[in-house]
């Protein structure tokens, strides 16, 4: 149900672009104004969100340690998963961000008669998440050839690697295929896995459909409904040089594509997609595990009411003396005389 809502929402968005830019011919709105607004909202939203997080202090060092700590000299430390230095943290974060190290550990639990539990390795999510993010990144970088003139060698190289297979007239990009497969997997997983389905919100389906919509409109534009590439580049270069113009010959499908991208940009800072920024700020991962070695300061630390030793001794002095425990203040009367 939630998936259907979200799908419907994405269809509605396509329709908006179709009517607005296609039938309505509002090319300037969809080709220039909305993209500009979207980029501004994205950047401002992203930065504000990170600042908002950053404003809250990290009062305690709470790294989740995933290996042996720095300890006695003859015990081998796991420097990456249990870093005691900043360098270690950088490595840990590198593996986390670049290779999704934590997700790689994923297992799934199985119940067997016996009674018995077993844990099977479960790396599919890791694999497809990785494929998804890397193809997304590559596609994003490939698009830079629309925003640069002359196109730097790096982007050209990326383009030719991605198009290595050279299938069809406009070369087939590997990443186009991979991302469709990966998004489909991520969606199917949400629907098929009962636990994941149970916790999924419309906010989980929506970005998947949106991204799928972007990818499919891109693919359509490239392989099926041809659009004038030269005109598109003229438009995009106009945008980056702040000299926007809308050339003729840019098909509606392009406006749909751009509109969906704009929606994604606007939606991004408001949503869970901010995990892109948040992963760097997670206090269980980005801190060195050295709180017994170094004292850290909690900016909002404040004195609290405690039960002091004096109060404790006052309460129990007599019994302490009787039991032969040392006290700070002697009893006013010796124990024997009190009886």
């Amino acid at each position, binding site marked *: 149900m939630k998936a259907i809502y979200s799908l419907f929402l994405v269809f509605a968005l396509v329709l908006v672009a179709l009517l607005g830019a296609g039938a309505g011919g509002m090319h300037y709105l969809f080709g220039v104004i909305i993209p500009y607004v979207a980029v501004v909202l994205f950047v401002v939203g992203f930065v504000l969100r990170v600042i908002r997080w*950053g404003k*809250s*202090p990290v*009062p*305690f060092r*709470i790294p*989740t*340690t995933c*290996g*042996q700590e720095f*300890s*006695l000299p*003859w015990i*081998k430390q796991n420097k990456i*998963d249990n870093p*005691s230095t900043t360098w270690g943290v950088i490595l840990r974060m590198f593996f*986390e961000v670049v290779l*999704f190290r*934590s*997700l790689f*550990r994923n*297992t799934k*639990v199985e*119940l067997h008669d016996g*009674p*018995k*539990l077993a*844990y099977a390795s479960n790396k599919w999510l890791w694999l497809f*998440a990785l494929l998804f993010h890397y193809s997304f990144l590559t596609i994003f970088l490939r698009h830079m050839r629309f925003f640069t003139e002359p196109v730097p060698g790096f982007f050209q190289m990326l383009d030719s690697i991605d198009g290595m297979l050279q299938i069809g007239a406009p070369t087939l990009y590997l990443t186009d295929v991979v991302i469709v497969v990966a998004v489909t997997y991520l969606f199917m997983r949400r629907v098929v*896995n*009962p*636990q*994941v389905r*149970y*916790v*999924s919100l419309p*906010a989980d389906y929506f970005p998947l459909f949106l991204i799928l919509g972007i990818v499919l409109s891109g693919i359509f534009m490239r392989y099926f409904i041809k659009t004038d590439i030269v005109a598109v580049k003229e438009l995009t270069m106009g945008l980056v040089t702040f000299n926007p113009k809308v050339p003729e010959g840019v098909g509606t499908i392009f406006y749909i594509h751009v509109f969906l991208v704009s929606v994604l940009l606007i939606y991004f800072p408001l949503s869970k997609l*901010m*995990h892109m920024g*948040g992963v760097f700020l*997670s*206090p*269980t991962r980005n801190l060195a595990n050295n*709180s*017994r*070695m*170094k*004292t*850290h300061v*909690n900016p909002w*630390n404040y004195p609290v*009411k*405690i*039960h002091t030793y004096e109060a*404790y*001794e006052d309460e*129990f002095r007599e019994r302490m003396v009787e*039991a032969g*425990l*040392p006290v700070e203040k002697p009893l006013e009367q010796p124990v024997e005389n009190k009886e």
Partner: protein
Amino acid sequence: MATPKPQELFASINHRPPKKDWMDVPVEIKPGRYCYAANPKSLEAVGMPHARQWNPLDDDWKLPENWKEIIIQGIRERLEKFRSFKVFMDICVRCGACADKCHYFIGSGDPKNMPVLRAELLRSIYRGEFTKAGKILGRFAGARKLTPEVIKEWWYYFFQCSECRRCSVFCPYGIDTAEITILGRELLNLLGLNIDWIATPVANCYRTGNHLGIQPHAFKDMIDFFCDDIEEITGIRPEPSFNKKGADILFITPSGDVFADPGTYTCMGYLMLFHYLKEEYGLEVTWSTYASEGGNFGFFTSHEMMKRLNAKMYLEAKRLGVKWILGGECGHMWRVIHQYMATMQQDMVGDLDFLEEPVSPITGTKFENAKATKMVHIVEFTADLIKHGKLKLDKSRNDNLIMTFHDSCNPSRGMGFHEEPRYIIKNTCNHFYDMPENTIREQTFCCGGGAGLNAGENEELRMMGGLPRANAVKYVHEKYGVNMLGCICAIDRAVLPNSMNYWVPGVQVTGLHELVGNALVLPGEQERETNLRGEPLPGKEDI
């Protein structure tokens, strides 16, 4: 309500969530899975708000008039104080990688015990009250209204989380549901909604220094009693000192070790070790009756309460003028010491220069890793002694034991304490087998009763939560004949014997210093006939 038989309980586990959306499934408070409400007297003793008599099974929880404002204000304050809270509220993608990692979910199948959903219970309110999208789009954005039902749900499920952090290991962003539970419990405590198995220990710790409310003379008596036993077994009587000014080291252990089997045997192990070190090397260790608890039940209540209870450790070290502090085998005590203590106590005791940087006076080893807090774990201390050949050990006395080791959650996921305990086991026992990889070290499972959930009335929950741990023990029990489960946590020692009995009969539980005590050859001791439990030593069975 009687706890079902293991087979029945296992057969009842169903990991398929219901058809209905979780927001439409009202909370149903099941006996056997919750702990009794806090005794108002205990809350009052430490000045906690809204102490009252209430019953979780009643409809009316007698919430204070302005409960909603209290919660909203409470969330707001915590968002400003904890980046972890803010970030964790915002970035979960509900990938579900954490879903089947929680021992309570594995054992109960209750979907709200999936860490992601446990956190959503709070996140949905955060979205509804603190985000634009949630306010406008409501349920579509995953938001819901704050109602008394929600508070009940929080209470029920935040006290079905042992704050073990296992879920955090698998989360791609390190989202720590334990952290969310900790803050959720803080919010509940603002409404006077604690459980008694936490509130009463807190009050006891505050007054008497330990969670059982043992008064100073009784504390000393209990330890004297262990000395009697040791004397009987070894012919040597340790003479521990209490509250002794000018001792070298202050020793603080969870009071569970002083009170309940099998922790008591571990306690005897400590006493024997300290006696040995005094005789052989002149090291003076003192116990404190004021700081007579290492475990900190405040941690299960609020950050503030944790700090209030922790203060006594440094205050006592300062008063006694010791060089540094040695800490016993305990789980959450060590998480607090490791991650919170130095930071929290600055305004209570200033910087910690009244203590020395810890150096073992016997081996000369500098405990670099404890340079700032000046508190050393007894397991690393003993491991270092063994490494330097400073202890005379007779391993064969533990030959009746086929050991495995349970990494307690807090030391393993909050410190990274993995090799030291294994080193001690291997040097005091001849037979040691680790459990399967997915169930040890940072992937270790909770005993099922951590974070204050070790009450009697929630036994069913504990058996459910204890299943994954017990099951891994069962594996090595069947494969290698393991009959003893070592651990370094007093709560483990309290909880695991029951769950072993239930799921894997034939496996007992021990702390590591019990093993040390058994193996340690005390100067001038008589020939031992029994181990610390009074059972005949291997080879002495027929005498």
